């Protein structure tokens, strides 16, 4: 590890440590417990957010006292599509955060093994979502047409636009 030197900044390299569960990491903003650094003015709101949304969680993630991990719109009955999309968002976020970690820790065995496992889960969920609802990527669309040539159509515009709040 590089040591401290005059006239140069130094940030310690992160060591692999405790992780948040896949269901809670997205609500917190990182999978790494060591990198969760809440802001005091955000903590009050959290209590409010948690009570405002109630406890009707799809997978009832354990509420981290520092961060909550609640999403908006949780008080309506969760639908199947939203539940599957939520799973895709959660596993994809694990990959997003791990990708950056592996960019600076390319040899990390624990990171690599989680990356592989989460990547496989995501692939299966993306395929399942395209089959049941609509494709999230152009590749998913091609894959759906391949599996079921009779249903082949250009379905890229199916489903709500992400900014309409349909992906909650």
């Amino acid at each position, binding site marked *: 590890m590089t040591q401290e030197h005059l006239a140069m900044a130094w940030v310690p390299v*992160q060591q692999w440590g405790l992780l948040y569960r896949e269901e809670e990491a997205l609500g917190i*903003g*990182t999978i790494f417990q060591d990198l969760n650094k809440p802001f005091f003015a955000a903590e009050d709101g959290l209590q*409010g957010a948690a009570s405002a949304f109630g406890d009707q969680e799809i997978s009832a993630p354990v509420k981290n006292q520092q*961060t909550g991990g609640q999403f*908006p719109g949780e008080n309506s009955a969760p639908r199947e599509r939203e539940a599957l999309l939520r799973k895709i968002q959660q596993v994809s976020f694990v990959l997003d955060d791990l990708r950056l970690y592996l960019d600076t820790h390319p040899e990390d065995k624990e990171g690599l093994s989680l990356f592989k496992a989460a990547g496989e889960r995501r692939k299966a969920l993306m395929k399942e979502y395209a089959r049941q609802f609509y494709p999230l*990527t152009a590749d998913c669309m091609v894959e759906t047409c391949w599996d079921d040539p009779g249903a082949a159509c250009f379905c890229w515009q199916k489903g709500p636009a992400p900014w309409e*709040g349909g992906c909650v």
Partner: protein
Amino acid sequence: MWMYEKRLQFPVKITKTCPKTAQLIISQYGGPDGELSASMRYLAQRYTMPDKAVGGLLTDIGTEELAHMEMICAMVYQLTRHLSVEEAKAAGFDAYYIDHTCGLWPQAAGGVPFTAKEFQSKGDAITDLMENLAAEQKARTVYDNLLRMITDPEVREPLKFLRTREIVHFQRFGEALEKTKEKLDSRNFYYFNPEFDKNFLNGNTAFRKESF
């Protein structure tokens, strides 16, 4: 090459119209420390980075910033999609409304339009990574300030998520700086520019040793 994935990185579902909040949040779209400038900053800097892994990190963070820009735009859109002219007037959103109606346009909270002056690409790895460390901190401060002012939990949840990402990115840029420093001589990190004076980097150690 980029591929679009039809979902937000973090869910945004805002049910209450609030042009005032939209006007504050739009700064993270087109403001000096916004997600658009973050994305353009990192994606511009990566071509000349001497360490391939650092170039890869810039690609990945620059890509994530595009997803953050999409979240911010979704928030501004949802805060204004049912806007009435009276609400726009009362909230001081009228000036924006005159020029853009409820369309998305990158500007700072104070109305200053987005420009490339908002970010730096200096062609020196140490300089650019320091710029990025500072940029993540500046964006975090903006999210802190937004969280002090905004009370709607539907708006706060995505803001808290984005704030945490700034801290994670800061850590990664710090590690990228360490990687870059490994390629340099710690007795004098500033003897040459690793992005321009490439002959110093490519194993020309004899020359380097003599130089100190």
